[in-house]
């Protein structure tokens, strides 16, 4: 998956599509499997990136191994009745609706009846304190935006710039489950209810096996597993697998107005996963990238075939837009890879205008090149590096420089008001050829539905062969008694 942040307009259509399809249910009111955050901002749940508080993800231990921060075999026993790292409802938000009936039923009076907010948890009237996008578009900045954990590395000067007039800037960060390669939620589950599907890598929670330990909720550093208080089971984004299995893009991908979302197959080297997850912070992004294999490489193809990957899947891996963004062009980066879960959702970092200052009535920009001076841009490089580069600017700078070069190249091509030579120099500096720049441009701006979503046939009928003998499975499978998840064993 790739989310192209430079194109995201923060409209929340993806969130609504997801909400309507999956979480418009009792017990799931507060869940947003897909949510859109404003950066700088604290997001949902509040300050989820602050792992000193939430204790999500992995950490390297002294002996070079990986430990889950929130739990372990020894910790789970003393914490058996109380998971000490659980976010509370206030940190998500208390879901509410409005008392619309009052608009119709209010007794006659001298004022207009209103629809007051009522809690969806206890049905009482509530004073709404926060919501899933409460800090949207820098709403409540002194409280929320200033406390973005990614601002920690910035100087006081840079921090002030972010919120001063003419320098104010924000961008959007849509988030879904990253369907990580090294998922902490799966590793933490004491019941073994979570698993990563072999055929497509979707991380799922078995609703029959889940025993409401909520270890996954505490362990996921992205806070993308949620506890359903009504069914007593944890839930998470399922990447709309029923849609994928019928060849459709997931609801949030499908509905995306800015067309920022790309979906495709990546072939990866599972054997090196552990070694990569243990790399030092500054090598993580490159290490993660090196896991992804070239689907055109004949050796990779023959290995894949040998391992039971069907030809259709390999073919769609070759056409995968994700592969191009992440591996070929290297402009898509994993979010917070320092949590070491090796997320499989990659973001193309956004461009932003350059800084400006105002004296009297004149506004002076710090650079003549309003949109394309990446070092002077209003979103400090350090901030993006904290989000997408584990604190290291190199990979982010590379991605931004290439995007900038593509823009100059296309401007020289189509408008012609910029120097061809300058454009070529920029391309060279950005490690990009004209052809590559055109390809990036096409997949960024002119992408069709088929370009963005390259979904292989799922071959569910073959997927079962990984676990079971098909003839045995046939005897056990059927429509059966289908019921929803229920509390208890």
């Amino acid at each position, binding site marked *: 998956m790739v989310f192209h942040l430079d194109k995201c307009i923060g409209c929340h259509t993806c969130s609504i599509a997801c909400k309507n399809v999956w979480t418009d249910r009792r017990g799931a009111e507060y869940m947003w499997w897909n949510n859109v955050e404003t950066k700088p901002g604290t997001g949902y749940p509040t300050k989820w990136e602050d792992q000193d508080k939430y204790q999500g993800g992995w950490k390297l231990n002294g002996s070079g191994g990986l430990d889950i921060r929130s739990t372990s075999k020894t910790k789970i026993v003393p914490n058996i009745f109380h998971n000490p*790292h659980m976010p*509370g409802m*206030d*940190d998500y938000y208390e879901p509410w609706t409005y008392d619309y009936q009052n608009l119709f039923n209010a007794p006659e009076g001298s004022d207009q009846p209103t629809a007051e907010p009522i809690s969806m948890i206890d049905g009482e009237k509530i004073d709404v304190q926060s919501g899933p996008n409460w800090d949207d578009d820098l709403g409540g900045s002194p409280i929320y935006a200033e406390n973005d954990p990614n601002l920690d590395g910035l100087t006081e000067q840079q921090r002030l710039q972010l919120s001063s*007039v003419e320098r104010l800037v924000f961008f959007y960060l849509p988030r879904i489950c990253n369907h990580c390669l090294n998922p902490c939620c799966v590793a933490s589950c004491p019941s073994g209810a979570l698993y990563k599907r072999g055929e497509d890598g979707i991380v799922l929670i078995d609703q029959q096996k889940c025993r409401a330990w909520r270890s996954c909720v505490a362990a996921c550093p992205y806070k993308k597993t949620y506890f359903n208080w009504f069914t007593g089971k944890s839930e998470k984004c399922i990447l709309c697998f029923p849609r994928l299995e019928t060849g459709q893009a997931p609801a949030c991908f499908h509905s995306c107005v800015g067309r920022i979302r790309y979906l495709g197959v990546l072939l990866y080297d599972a054997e090196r996963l552990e070694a990569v997850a243990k790399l030092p912070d500054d090598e993580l992004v490159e290490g993660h990238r090196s896991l992804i294999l070239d689907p055109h490489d004949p050796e990779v193809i023959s290995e894949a075939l040998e391992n039971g990957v069907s030809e259709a899947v390999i073919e769609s891996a070759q056409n995968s837009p994700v592969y191009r963004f992440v591996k070929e062009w290297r402009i898509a980066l994993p979010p917070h890879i320092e949590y070491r879960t090796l997320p499989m959702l990659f973001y193309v970092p956004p461009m932003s205008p350059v800084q400006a200052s105002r004296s009297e009535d004149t506004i002076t920009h710090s650079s003549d090149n309003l949109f394309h001076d990446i070092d002077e841009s209003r979103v400090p490089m350090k901030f993006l590096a904290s989000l997408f580069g584990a604190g290291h600017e190199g990979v982010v700078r590379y991605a931004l420089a290439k995007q900038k070069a593509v823009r100059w190249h296309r401007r020289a091509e189509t408008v012609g008001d910029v120097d061809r030579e300058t454009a070529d120099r920029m391309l060279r500096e950005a490690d990009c050829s004209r052809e590559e720049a055109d390809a990036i441009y096409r997949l960024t701006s002119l992408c069709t539905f088929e370009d963005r979503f390259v979904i292989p046939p799922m071959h569910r009928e073959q997927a079962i062969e990984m676990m079971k003998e098909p003839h045995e499975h046939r005897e056990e499978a059927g429509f059966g008694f289908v019921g929803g998840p229920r509390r208890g064993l």
Partner: protein
Amino acid sequence: MLLVLVAGTSSVRAQDTPDYYRQNCLNCHTIGGGRLTGPDLKDVTKRRDTEWLINFLQNPKSVVDSGDPYAAKLVEESRGVVMPIAPGMTRYRAEQLIRLIEAESKLEKSQFQGVKISNRPFTDADRKNGEAIFVGIRRLKNGGTACSACHSIYNLPALGGGRLGPDLTRVYERLKGRQALSAWLMAPATETMQPIFRNRPLEAEEIHALAAYFEEAARHSESDASTARITFLLTGLAIATGVIFVFDAVWKERFRGVRRPLVEDSVSRGPDSHREKTS
């Protein structure tokens, strides 16, 4: 093998009625040992006819209530104590008992003559020993439960003894002296004590010590149960509070909410702080 088993069971059966007597009757009735709470049963079959005895055994209270003069006399003699119905009493059981009493009465010295309750005078050492047994510092030789598990007495420390059984401070007085008390201790007959002491009877020496202790206790007034109760409650609360503090320290790093502190922090800084910072 089978034969051994059969022999085993029959011998148990033969032993059944004497055991029953020992467990249910002996603490009030001796056979040829003089009266305790109830009368000496030696030659009782000569005093009343068998049918009357069977009737009385099966339900003493109804016989007393029916206005039977002999029964009334018995109650009077035992200072108002009406004989309880022994557990598991049936007509068959009653017949067996009467036969046993008859047989034992003929003997020179019945096995139910009662304990050899020593008439040694109580010494301070006995009293001390008795107290040690009561609170459980000294174990009962046959493994019975220490008295203080269920009973309280005047001089126990703050938390007092158990509350399942009655306070035993004045038990010496209640049971009217040393002999009846000792007889009771030989085979405690209440429903709660019997199962505990049936197979773990007290030794004569232990009974002597306890009797000495109880004799002294009877000179004191009963312990004030309400103080002990309040002490117990307060101690419990103190321990619970302590445990909560320990938990709080152990889970010091637990998650305590993020959003609300952010908001509170911002509110406490005041609405102008932000503007000042940025201007």
